[in-house]
C-alpha cells in the first residue's frame, strides 16, 4: 500500500463529497468568538466564510452618547491586548481636533507604555500561535515575560489589562518611583528571551514545516484588502505609520522597520507573505520595541518631573468642546493601523465616532488566503493574521 500523500496537489485529485464544517464560535484556535463556516472537500478548504459580530457592543454608538474623555475606557475594551495603543490613538485623535500640546516628558511616557504594550501583545500573539501549532512550551515562556510587562503597567495605572492610563491631554498620573529601573530590567531580560523564543519556535523545524509557504498574502492582495501591520510588512511592503507618518515623539526615536524579504537571516525559509514571515516580523518588531522602550526610559530619566504633579498633563477644560470639524487619525497598533474618524459639532459629545479596527480589516482576507489549503492550515492562517475579536466586533 502506498503511503498517504500529504501534498495538496495530490489531494486535489481525490474527489470526495463536499462537506460544510462549522468552526467556532467556541473554538480554541479562533482566538475568541470567531465563527468560520468552511466548505471542505476531504481535507481541502474549498471556500469559507467568517461570521463576526458575536461580541458586537456598538462602541461607535456608545461613543456618540458619552463625552470625549468618557470614551477612553471603552477604547481599552476593543483590542484588549493592546489597550495602551488604543488609548494613545484615541487621545491623539482628540488632541489633534483640539490642537492640544502635551508636555514632552509625558509624551515619552505614553510612547514607552505603548511600546511596552506592543511587546506584551506580540508575546501573547507569538505564544498562542505556538500553541495553535502544537508547541505548548513557548506559550508558557511568553506568558512569563508578558506577566512582568503587565505588572509594570499595573503599577502605574492600577489595571492589569484595561488601563485607562493615557488621557486626553496627558496621562492619569506620573510613573512611580523606580519604575524605569524595573522596566529596564525587563528589557535586559527580553534581549536574551527573544533569542530563546527564536530558538524554540521560529527556527524550529516542525514550526517551519507548519507555517512556511502557508497562507501566502502577496503585496497586491495586501493592498487590495487594505491589510496593515505585520501582515503588510511580511508581504514586503516597507511601511510603518510610526516612521512614515510620525506622531508624538516617534521621530526622535531610532528604530528600523522590519520588512519581509523572503530570505530571512541568509537562509530561505518559506515565501514572502506566508504565515512564517508574519510570525518572524513580529519577533523582529519586538526587538525594535525593546530598543524604543530603552530610549524612552533614558529620556524619561533625563527630563525632570514637573513640580506640580498635575502638570504631568496639559491643562484641559473640565468639559471638552472641540471646535466643529472632523479628523481622521491613524496609529500603528500591534495588529495594524487603528484609525479614529471623529466628527465634532462643537458639543461635548462627538457627533460621529468611527473606529477603523485593524483586526476587522485583516480578517476579511481570510477567505481569499485560505482557499485551497488544508483544513489544518486554516488554524495556522487565523493565528498568523492575529486578530482580537473585541476589535473585530467592537
Amino acid at each position: 500500500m502506498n503511503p498517504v500523500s500529504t501534498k495538496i496537489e495530490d489531494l486535489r485529485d481525490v474527489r470526495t463529497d463536499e462537506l460544510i464544517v462549522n468552526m467556532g464560535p467556541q473554538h480554541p484556535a479562533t482566538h475568541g468568538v470567531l465563527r468560520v463556516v468552511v466548505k471542505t472537500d476531504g481535507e481541502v478548504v474549498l471556500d469559507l466564510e467568517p461570521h463576526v459580530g458575536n461580541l458586537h457592543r456598538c462602541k461607535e454608538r456608545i461613543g456618540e452618547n458619552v463625552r470625549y474623555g468618557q470614551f477612553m475606557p471603552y477604547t481599552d475594551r476593543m483590542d484588549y491586548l493592546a489597550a495602551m495603543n488604543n488609548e494613545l490613538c484615541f487621545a491623539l485623535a482628540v488632541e489633534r481636533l483640539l490642537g492640544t500640546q502635551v508636555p514632552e516628558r509625558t509624551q515619552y511616557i505614553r510612547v514607552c507604555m505603548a511600546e511596552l504594550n506592543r511587546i506584551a501583545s506580540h508575546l501573547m500573539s507569538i505564544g498562542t500561535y505556538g500553541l495553535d501549532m502544537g508547541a505548548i512550551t513557548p506559550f508558557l515562556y511568553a506568558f512569563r515575560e508578558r506577566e512582568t510587562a503587565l505588572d509594570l503597567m499595573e503599577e502605574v495605572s492600577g489595571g492589569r489589562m484595561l488601563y485607562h492610563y493615557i488621557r486626553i491631554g496627558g496621562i492619569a498620573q506620573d510613573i512611580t518611583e523606580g519604575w524605569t529601573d524595573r522596566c529596564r530590567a525587563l528589557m535586559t531580560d527580553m534581549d536574551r528571551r527573544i533569542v530563546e523564543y527564536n530558538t524554540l519556535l521560529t527556527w524550529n523545524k516542525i514550526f517551519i514545516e507548519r507555517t512556511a509557504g502557508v497562507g501566502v498574502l502577496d503585496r497586491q492582495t495586501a493592498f487590495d484588502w487594505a491589510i496593515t501591520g505585520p501582515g503588510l510588512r511580511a508581504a514586503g511592503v516597507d511601511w510603518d505609520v510610526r516612521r512614515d507618518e510620525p506622531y508624538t515623539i516617534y521621530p526622535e526615536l531610532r528604530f528600523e522597520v522590519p520588512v519581509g524579504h523572503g530570505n530571512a537571516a541568509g537562509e530561505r525559509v518559506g515565501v514572502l507573505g506566508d504565515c512564517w514571515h508574519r510570525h518572524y516580523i513580529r519577533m523582529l518588531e519586538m526587538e525594535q520595541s525593546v530598543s524604543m522602550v530603552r530610549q524612552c526610559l533614558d529620556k524619561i530619566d533625563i527630563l525632570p518631573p514637573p513640580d506640580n504633579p498635575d502638570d504631568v498633563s496639559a491643562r484641559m477644560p473640565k468639559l471638552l468642546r472641540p471646535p466643529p470639524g472632523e479628523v481622521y487619525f491613524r496609529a500603528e497598533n500591534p495588529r495594524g493601523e487603528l484609525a479614529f474618524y471623529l466628527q465634532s459639532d462643537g458639543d461635548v459629545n462627538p457627533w460621529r465616532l468611527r473606529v477603523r479596527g485593524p483586526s476587522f480589516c485583516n480578517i476579511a482576507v481570510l477567505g481569499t488566503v485560505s482557499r485551497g489549503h488544508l483544513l489544518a492550515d486554516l488554524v495556522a492562517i487565523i493565528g498568523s493574521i492575529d486578530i482580537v475579536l473585541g476589535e473585530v466586533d467592537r
Partner: protein
Amino acid sequence: MLKGRLGDDVLDIVQEGIHPFVRVKPSAWRAAAEFARDGLGCESLHDLTAVDSKDRTVLTVICHLWSFHHRHWVNLKADVDRAEPCIDSLQPLWNAADWHERECWDMFGVRFEGHPNLRRILCAEDWVGFPLRKDYEMPSEYHGIPGIPVMRARDTEVGHCFPPVKKEAPPKPAAPAAPPPAATGGAS
C-alpha cells in the same frame, strides 16, 4: 485634478484644515473612486463609513483612500437621500470595501448597488433598524432578551438606564436557620 476630470459632479472641495475632502454627487461616486485609484494612485481603501446629518435629510457616505506610492489621502464624501439611501458599491474596485460596505448597510441602511453579498455583518440577520442612525431606538426586547433603553433614559434624564429588577420574595427556607455564608465558604 479631480474637479477637472469629473466636472460638475464635484460639489465641494475643502483643501484646508486637518481633514481635506472632496464632495461628489452620489451618481459620480464610483467614477470618482475609480479615478482616485487609477489616476491618483490610491492602492488601498483604508476606511468607508457614513454619518447621519443634523436635519435628518441625508446620510453622508465617506471613504478614506490612501496611496502608499504618493503618500497622500483622498477623502471622498457623497450625500445620499436618507429615505432611500443608495449608492454604487466600491467592492469591484477594492475588495476591502466588501466588509466596510456590509457594516455601513448594517449600521446605516445604505444600500450599495453592485455589492455581491450585502448582508448584515455585526448585528444578527433578523435585527430591526439601523443602530447608528440618530433616530434609532433600542428594541425593548430581542428573542426574549430585554433591551436597555439607553437613549430613552438619557432623553428623560432618568438616573439609571437598566430597568429596575423586580424582587420576588425569597421562598422560606425549610431549615430554621441557614448556615452563615462564612461557614460554607470555609468548607469549600
